């Protein structure tokens, strides 16, 4: 029984990492809203997480500690940062859409806080059980 590294908790931790990274990427897009020829970046994570969660964990035999264990892909999941080169918002080539960035900023912040709440609730649930129901 994995107390701290079960699928849900690992997924939530990955979600927090991705949220922190996305915050950096959005902050960078916003900071460069007036930089000529700047191209924005976006973070892809949720679709990768979905794929990782759908994947059936296949247990593979390992004969060497350096082998991949075939454990769920989830543990090694990292978000991807994509540079959007194809669009332009202005004649100087900058493609930051400030409204989109502000909306993404708000959404990312809420998503992050939701994941924090969920993770904190799981830890306090464990803590409740460990103390035998006495607070």
């Amino acid at each position, binding site marked *: 029984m994995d107390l701290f590294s079960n699928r849900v908790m690992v997924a939530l931790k990955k979600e927090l990492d991705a949220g922190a*990274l996305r915050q950096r990427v959005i902050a*960078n897009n*916003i900071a460069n809203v007036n930089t000529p020829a700047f191209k924005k970046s976006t973070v892809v994570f949720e679709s990768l997480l979905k794929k990782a969660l759908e994947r059936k964990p296949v247990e593979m035999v390992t004969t060497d500690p350096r082998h991949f264990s075939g454990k769920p892909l989830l543990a090694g999941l990292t978000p991807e940062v994509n540079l959007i080169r194809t669009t332009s918002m202005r004649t100087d080539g900058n493609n930051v859409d400030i409204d989109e960035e502000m909306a993404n900023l708000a959404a990312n912040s809420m998503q992050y806080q939701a994941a924090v709440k969920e993770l904190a609730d799981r830890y306090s649930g464990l803590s409740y059980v460990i103390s035998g129901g006495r607070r």
Partner: protein
Amino acid sequence: MGGFFSAFAISASGLTAERMRLDLISNNIANMNTTGRPNDPANPPYRRRIPVFAQILEQAEDTGTSRPLFRGAGVRVTRVLEDNNPPRLVYDPTHPHADEKGYVAYPNINIVNEMVNMITATRAYEANVTALNAAKEMALKALEIGRG
């Protein structure tokens, strides 16, 4: 993982750059009437100053195995350019900077341009403040993990 402190630093770099831009715009507006003598290099009129923004890219760390996911680290002002457009000539023979034909060189500053740029810079500054506050809220929320 850069974490939240690099997010703060990125937003802070945006604030610094936009404030620099606002300072230059204020300076341009303040010097709207800083005159000079036409075609006299010893007495030039004020020249409009414009910041040049460029993205900061983090140097890739030499870890060998893993490359950083994201190298953007904000924005900085690389140079301050002077506007080379010719000055505006105004006929005012009594002015101390008047040349022999009676013309005075005024800086080629269009107040409407400056005001519009000022609004853009202010809005961009506010957007960076919002991003910084969002990062702060997220970081504070993350501190609540494991608190009872």
